[in-house]
C-alpha cells in the first residue's frame, strides 16, 4: 500500500541511512553508461531513469561463486555466514518476484540451503515500479506486473520529483519506520496518479498466452517443435546466467596450494556436460532435449512442483540471446 513520499533529492539520505545498518545496492551508471545495481554510495546520486539492469540481482542471494567449505590439513571449515543486512534499492518488480521462485527451491523442501537462507533472511528489497516497460517485457502475462509488490518488502515508484513508497511486508514496514523522519504522507491524489501510471504501463505490454501452459507443454513433450526451435541454439549460457530465476548450480573443488575450496558455481542446462554421466551416457544428448528441458523446467515442472512459473517476464533471455531466440514464440506455438 503506497502511502509515503520522499523527494528525489532526499533519496541519497535514505540510502545513506540504510548504509549505516548494512550493505546497500542502488542503481548507478557504469562506464558504458548502462544502468547497473551497484554498491552504495556511488560518485553521484542514485539513478532513477533506467529500464532494467542487464544482470539480475540473483547473484546477491546466489553468488556465481560461493565457497561452501574449505579443507585444509584434514580439517573442514565452513565459511562464516555474514550477519550484515543487505538493502536492494531499485530492483524491478519482475526481479523481486523472481526471488520468490528462488525461495521455493532453496528454502522449500526438506533441506534448507543455509548459504542462501542466510543471505535471504538478511535482505530487504525495495522494488521500483516500472513506468516504461520494454518491448521484451511480459511480466503481466506470467503473474506479475510493473507495479507488483510480490517478493518486495517495499514498493516504490517515481512520480515527478518524488518517490512514493509503501510497505509490502512486515520487514518493509520496519524499514520505512526506521526512516520515518525522512518521509511524509503521500497525498491521495499522488497515490491515484501513481496507480494510473502503473495501469498505463500494464496496458503497454503485449500479452503472451501462457494459459494452461503446463498442460500444453506436457502434451507437446514429443512435438517436432523442439527440434526446430532448438536448431539455432548455440548452447551458450547467456539465457540462464542472465535469468533471474535460473538457479542450477555445479559444485567443484578448487585446489589452491594446500587449501581445497568446495565451490558452488552457476551451471546451465544448455551445456552438454550438465547431465553427462561418468559412463558417457547423456540423458539429454542434444540441443533439442536441453532446450526442451529449459522450457519445461520454467513453465511446467516448476508449475507442477511449486505452483509457480519460473519465468517473470523480464525478457533478458530474449534481448541478449546471441541468435535472437525468443521463448515467447515457443510459448505461443506450443499446443496452438
Amino acid at each position: 500500500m503506497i502511502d509515503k513520499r520522499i523527494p528525489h533529492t532526499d533519496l541519497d539520505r535514505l540510502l545513506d541511512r540504510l548504509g549505516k545498518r548494512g550493505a546497500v545496492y542502488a542503481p548507478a551508471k557504469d562506464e558504458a553508461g548502462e544502468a547497473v545495481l551497484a554498491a552504495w554510495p556511488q560518485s553521484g546520486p542514485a539513478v532513477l531513469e533506467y529500464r532494467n539492469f542487464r544482470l539480475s540481482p540473483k547473484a546477491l542471494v546466489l553468488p556465481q561463486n560461493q565457497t561452501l567449505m574449505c579443507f585444509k590439513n584434514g580439517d573442514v571449515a565452513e565459511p562464516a555466514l555474514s550477519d550484515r543486512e543487505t538493502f536492494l534499492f531499485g530492483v524491478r518488480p519482475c526481479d523481486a518476484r523472481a526471488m520468490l521462485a528462488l525461495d521455493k527451491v532453496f528454502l522449500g523442501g526438506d533441506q534448507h540451503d543455509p548459504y542462501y537462507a542466510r543471505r535471504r533472511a538478511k535482505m530487504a528489497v525495495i522494488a521500483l515500479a516500472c513506468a516504461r516497460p520494454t518491448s521484451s517485457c511480459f511480466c503481466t502475462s506470467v503473474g506479475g506486473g510493473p507495479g507488483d509488490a510480490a517478493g518486495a518488502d517495499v514498493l516504490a515508484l517515481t512520480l515527478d520529483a518524488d518517490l512514493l513508497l509503501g510497505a509490502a511486508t512486515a520487514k518493509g514496514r520496519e524499514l520505512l519506520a526506521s526512516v520515518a523522519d525522512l518521509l511524509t504522507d503521500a497525498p491521495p491524489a499522488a497515490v491515484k496518479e501513481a496507480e494510473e501510471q502503473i495501469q498505463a504501463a500494464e496496458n503497454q505490454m503485449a500479452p503472451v498466452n501462457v494459459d494452461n501452459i503446463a498442460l500444453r507443454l506436457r502434451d507437446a513433450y514429443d512435438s517436432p517443435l523442439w527440434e526446430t526451435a532448438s536448431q539455432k541454439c548455440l548452447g551458450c549460457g547467456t539465457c540462464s546466467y542472465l535469468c533471474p530465476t535460473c538457479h542450477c548450480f555445479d559444485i567443484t573443488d578448487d585446489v589452491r596450494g594446500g587449501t581445497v575450496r568446495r565451490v558452488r558455481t552457476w551451471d546451465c542446462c544448455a551445456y552438454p556436460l550438465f547431465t553427462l554421466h561418468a559412463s558417457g551416457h547423456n540423458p539429454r544428448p542434444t540441443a533439442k532435449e536441453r532446450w526442451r528441458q529449459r522450457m519445461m523446467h520454467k513453465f511446467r515442472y516448476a508449475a507442477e512442483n511449486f505452483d509457480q512459473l519460473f519465468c517473470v517476464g523480464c525478457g533478458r533471455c530474449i534481448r541478449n540471446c546471441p541468435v535472437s531466440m525468443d521463448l515467447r514464440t515457443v510459448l505461443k506455438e506450443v499446443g496452438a
Partner: protein
Amino acid sequence: MARNPYLPYPARIEEVAVENAARDIKTFRLAFADPESAAEFRYMPGQFAELSLPGLGEAPFGIASSPTEAGYLLFSVKRVGLFTGELHSLEAPAPIGIRGPMGKPFPWDRMAGKDLVIVGGGFAFTTLRAAIQYILDPANRARFGSLLVIYGARTPGELMYRKDLAEWQARDDLQVHLTVDEPDADWKQHKGVVTTVLEGLKPSSQNALAVVCGPPVMIRFALLSLGKLRFADDAIILSLEMRMKCGIGKCGRCNIGHKYVCRDGPVFTREELKALPVEY
C-alpha cells in the same frame, strides 16, 4: 540448528576389497570418524550417499550395506573417471567424507508381507545386496514372504559379493540363481541372460513385488519378462542413476520431468516412471 546439508560426515576407509576379475570394482568399507556422525546417519537399503574427497569433489553411490550390518557402510565403486580413479588408489585408513543418506529407499512398508523377486545385473547389484542383507536379518526375515534372487553378469569373474552369494546359496530361506553370459570351465550354474532364468523360474506375481537394478538393456528386457509374468506396474520397483551434484533437489540436473532422482528417487515404481518423460 539443522545440519548444513552440504557438509560431509568425516569417515575413514577401513577395508578395501577387489570385487571382480577385471579389478575395476572395489568395495570400500567405511566407518564414521565419530559416534555422533554414525548415529545421525540413519538409512534404509535403496538410499545412496555422496562420497567426498577434498580436491576431487563428490560422487553419488548406492549404499551396499544394510543398516543391520552395524558399525560400517559399504560402497562398491567402479573405476570410470577422475573421482573413482582416485578413490581406487586409496587404502585404509584414508580419510573420506560421506554426505547423506540421500533419496528414498526401497518401499519397505509395501514390501512387508510380500514375496520378493530381486533381479540384478552386473555392477548395479549394490543396493540389492543391501536389500537382501536387510531382509535376511533374523529380526526382519519373518516380515517378508519368499525371496528369489536372480543375479547375472557377463562372466563369473564379474559377479560381485562372491562370499555373500555363497552364504546365501547355502541358506534355505531364499533362492539365489546366478547366471553368466560367458561361463568358464568351472561354471556350473545358469548360462544366459537373467530374463531367461526369470522366465524359466516363473515366479508368481500374486502378492509379490519385483525389484530390478541393472544396465539399461537388462532393465528393458526384465520389464518385458515381468510383464509376461503379470507383475503389475506398481509391483515393479526400479532404481535409477543420474548425474548429481547437490543430492538434495536444488542443483537442478537430475530431474526426470518434475521429479528429482536425488530427492524423489532413485527408487521408482514402473508405474511412477511411466508417468514421467523417458529422459534417463
